[in-house]
């Protein structure tokens, strides 16, 4: 298992297009990947756009990304970098 924390930076939060970019990126990896607010217990699949939208992660939320599987380290690092880039907004 591998995990990292990162704060959501782009204006719209993890909604709409960023959520779409995020799940499409997550699906490239084999591992089971979960995401959720760092200060809470809820974790949802990073490969489910509906669960991510349902969580409503706004700008400023610190989230934790956890992956379990063969490419777990790559997966987490890639997704963290994606969030850090602000999704090009």
């Amino acid at each position, binding site marked *: 298992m591998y995990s990292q924390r990162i704060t959501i930076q782009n*204006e719209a939060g993890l*909604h*709409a*297009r960023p959520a*779409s970019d995020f*799940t*499409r990126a997550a*699906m490239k990896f084999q591992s089971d990947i979960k995401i959720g607010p760092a200060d809470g217990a809820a974790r*949802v*699949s990073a*490969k*489910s*756009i*509906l*669960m991510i*939208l*349902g969580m*409503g992660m706004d700008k400023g939320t610190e989230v934790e990304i956890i992956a379990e599987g063969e490419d777990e380290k790559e997966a987490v690092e890639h997704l963290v970098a994606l969030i850090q880039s602000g999704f090009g907004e």
Partner: protein
Amino acid sequence: MTLTGNPVSPGVAVGPLYVYRPKTMAITEAILRPEAVEAELARLHDVKAAAAREIRGIARSLQAQDPRNAKIFDAHEDILNDRILMEEVTRAIRDEGRAGDWAIQMAFDRFAAMLNRVDNPVIRERAADLQDVCARLLRLWHGVEEKGLAHLHQPVILAARDLLPSDTAALDRGKVLAILTEMGGAASHTAILARGYRIPAVLGIADLLAQVQHGDLAAVDAQTGTILLSPTDQELQALRAREASDRAEAERTRAFLPIKPLTADGRMVELGLNIGTGSDDELAYREYADFVGLFRTEFLYMSAPALPEEERQYSAYRNVLSAFGEKPVTLRTLDIGGDKAPKCLPLPREDNPFLGSRALRLCFARPDLFRTQLRAALRASVYGNLWLMLPMVSSLDDIRKARAIIASVHRELTEEGIAVSERYKVGAMIETPSMALIPDLMVDEVDFASIGTNDLCQYLMAADRLNPAVAEYYQLYHPALFRAVECSANAFAAAGKPLSICGELGGDPLAAAVFVGMGIRKLSMGPASLAAVKQMLSRLTTAQARALAQTVTGLSSAGEIEAYLKSKLI
């Protein structure tokens, strides 16, 4: 017979009704025999693949002519690929033995319910996308052909219970005269599409389908939201006349909106936008305007559940400032009062709210509000060309006091290491009679000013502009108003400082002609007025405008002035 609904896209249309009833699929509410489960799962896999192919095809074909609509189908593809959603369907088939279409319907319903519980209305809209993808999967499951609105044989008025993105993806735009639905509001997909395609639309018509017949003649008035079924000749004539004048107006807009606002003798008059929220619709006009003459900031407070924090305000201001780049954005500080207190800011009842603690006076009484807004504005100033404007100024003391507070906020930010633009301007509105009478003294205290003709007229005429009992006493063309503008124009021209008109009269072509004749070179208005004012300017030389102004200032009543202007300019 007349039906009514919510008009969401303007216009008028007359034509035969086309009642669109997409087939609803009957779900197989059956439990499978264990041996049938594998085949059902395989069928799910095939149907999902077919759906993906259809969706990608639509997205591709829309990409060229309608990229915004195409994005919706990217979102549909995301939904189709949602792991958890598909696992849910698979589980229902494999572990509970439900028929495939039943499993699909149940899973989609569950997720739609989940999305509907989220606070954010943008996310709730996604429930409609879920419905659309579900309908596609069910249609493919049952092997039914996609019967779209792509091939309409004649121009029709579309009537449906609801229109999903898939229904309208291949819409034969040229043949749709108007859209009527039972469901949907101003923010629905249908409304956005109708506005984008400039098709008149009325939504939320209760029991529409029960009351109309395919082929019936209907007349739609999407200004008022009324639909006349089987209209009389008279009704038709009236509506067709409206349709013709709407078309003429649209023609004019097309012709004049994009041109430079020059008088007939080539003099530039800067035209600005009055905006209320900085929405995409408003910002879309930015290439047709030279500046923002009035950025109203009350929207941040009006329907907010709590006072808007600095971050939220900063974000909104930054958005508008960066959208306009080098073009000045005149941000008016909070201008509300006891007459229309927002929920997040309960204000004490006053007997005369328009003469009470409102706007700048309220900001002085509530420095927390004022400083928060100023901090947000000054922080945002680095992203564009900020002109801060103070409303309801009644004395030079007000201006001096406000400028001191602005300077203190600027210092505070600098001490915190936060960047503030070096070049923002500070100005005030001329809307109280006291300021209108001393523009020569005022001009030394400000970088610029703007005349708020609505409130100025109200205070000059001593008539509440919202009170129908005294509507006849609120006279926008009263000579006093024109003289006030002339006085201010002279004072500001002498000092070489910018003066604009941001009240309603600035967007009135007749009044605009007079103002230009008085030397005003900046007029700000709602986007809908830009084309008409540009047209007026193009027909007038500055000499002609000056002659108009000279005559107008000698006339003694609003009626005379109006008659004179109409005779000369229309």
